[in-house]
């Protein structure tokens, strides 16, 4: 039996992702954003996207998310004060709401983007090409999708290698630790440049860009269900945005 993730054209998924991300950017209300996050999670589960591994990553980033809420709220001085020292306000209700908005937006964008992980980069490129996006740009997108996980692997390896030099990161003062983390950047940038050079050579060796009109062995074909989902998505998007702005935005 065909699962929903295999049924839909990657372009339809791209429209869903763009719609969810767009609403997340335009809407400021925390309740609305919470609702959109819920919808994103449900769609993500429906498409069988790698949500569990994402949640595991979020767990590790929990401290960052919480600190983001507080950092964001510290810079907002309006609203009812919660923590203040004399005349200086450190935390306000308005500030916390702003922080929550930021975090909810981030979560919506990341979770909805995970839906694209249910397609191969080749399928996504094909979708973009059939949308008449220049192949060079579509190919760049596919390279980004292909190399991003490798980049995270490399960062992890470098941090491991640094620790295996007998450096106990958790016991080192913050200033020294920041200097150590600066070492992570060097091999990542150098390796990326080396990889880019090798990739461009390999592409030229295989005649990239020689023929102006490219043909594809695999082509995508939109079906009725694809059009139906696009219509439902656009209707959903306009309803949510319309409702939000009618209520005074």
């Amino acid at each position, binding site marked *: 039996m065909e699962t929903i993730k295999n049924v839909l054209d990657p372009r339809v998924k791209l429209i869903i992702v763009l719609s969810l991300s767009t609403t997340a950017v335009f809407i400021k209300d925390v309740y609305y954003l919470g609702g959109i996050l819920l919808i994103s999670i449900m769609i993500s589960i429906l498409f069988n996207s790698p949500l569990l591994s994402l949640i595991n990553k979020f767990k590790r980033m929990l401290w960052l998310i919480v600190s983001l809420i507080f950092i964001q709220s510290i810079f907002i001085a309006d609203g009812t004060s919660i923590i203040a020292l004399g005349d200086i306000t450190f935390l306000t209700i308005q500030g916390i709401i702003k922080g929550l908005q930021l975090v909810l937006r981030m979560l919506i964008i990341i979770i909805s983007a995970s839906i694209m992980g249910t397609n191969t980069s080749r399928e996504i490129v094909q979708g973009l090409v059939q949308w008449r996006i220049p192949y060079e740009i579509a190919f760049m997108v596919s390279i980004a999708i292909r190399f991003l996980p490798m980049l995270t692997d490399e960062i992890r390896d470098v941090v491991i290698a640094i620790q*295996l030099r*007998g*450096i106990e990161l958790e016991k080192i003062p913050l200033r*020294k630790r920041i200097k150590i983390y600066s070492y992570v950047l060097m091999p990542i940038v*150098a390796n990326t440049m080396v990889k880019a050079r090798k990739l461009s050579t390999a592409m030229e060796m295989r005649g990239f860009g020689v023929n102006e009109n490219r043909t594809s062995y695999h082509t995508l074909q939109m079906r009725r269900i694809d059009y139906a989902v696009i219509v439902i998505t656009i209707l959903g998007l306009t309803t949510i945005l319309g409702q939000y702005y009618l209520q005074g935005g």
Partner: protein
Amino acid sequence: MIDHVSFAYKKQHPIINNMSIELFSEDFTAIVGANGTGKTTLGKLMTGILKPEKGSVIIDGLDSSKISLGAIGKKAGYLFQNPERQIFAPNVYEELSFPLEVKGMKKEEIERKVNESLTIFQLTHLSKVFPFTLSQGEKQRLALAAILINEPKFLILDEPTTGLDIERKNTLSTILGRLKEKGIGIVMISHDGAFIGKHATRIIELAGGEVIGDNKKCLGSKSKTDHCA
């Protein structure tokens, strides 16, 4: 000590299957086996980079799951299959000096140790060079020098002879011989039969995530391994 260790990257495909091995610092242990038999995974388990799903890895009396990588790094050094993964400073000298600086060693002492290391590994003329422009053999030597400057008690080398010419292999051979004399335990994961034949006092053969052979050259060491080749 690897004690009934199992490990899998994906649940359905175990890479290491209920494996038990005891390693001794007086041995030069070679781990051999075909591609995909779990050699590199075993090496990463030995250094705590990977944590076992079942069983335990005991490093110098401490469970690898309960100590930090930094603490393991003070006891054991690990040479990655690809040395580029463990090079990160803007020049060769700093590559060797920065862990010592972080540990708060005196400047004169750092200078002495780094210069000594540069000489041993024939890298003195490259001390100001950007490490990523070095040849494969030079990177290999730099990575090894960077590990050894920490004075680990145990060394795990993953395919250290890959990409080395005969002359560089001989240099590596001399260096490893000296380390052995100093009493540093060495585990080498390799396909290089000639190199293993020259140095190894114990050969562990893996297949399908299990030990299928554990042979020891009887050189009068105190190892508890029974078999002698």
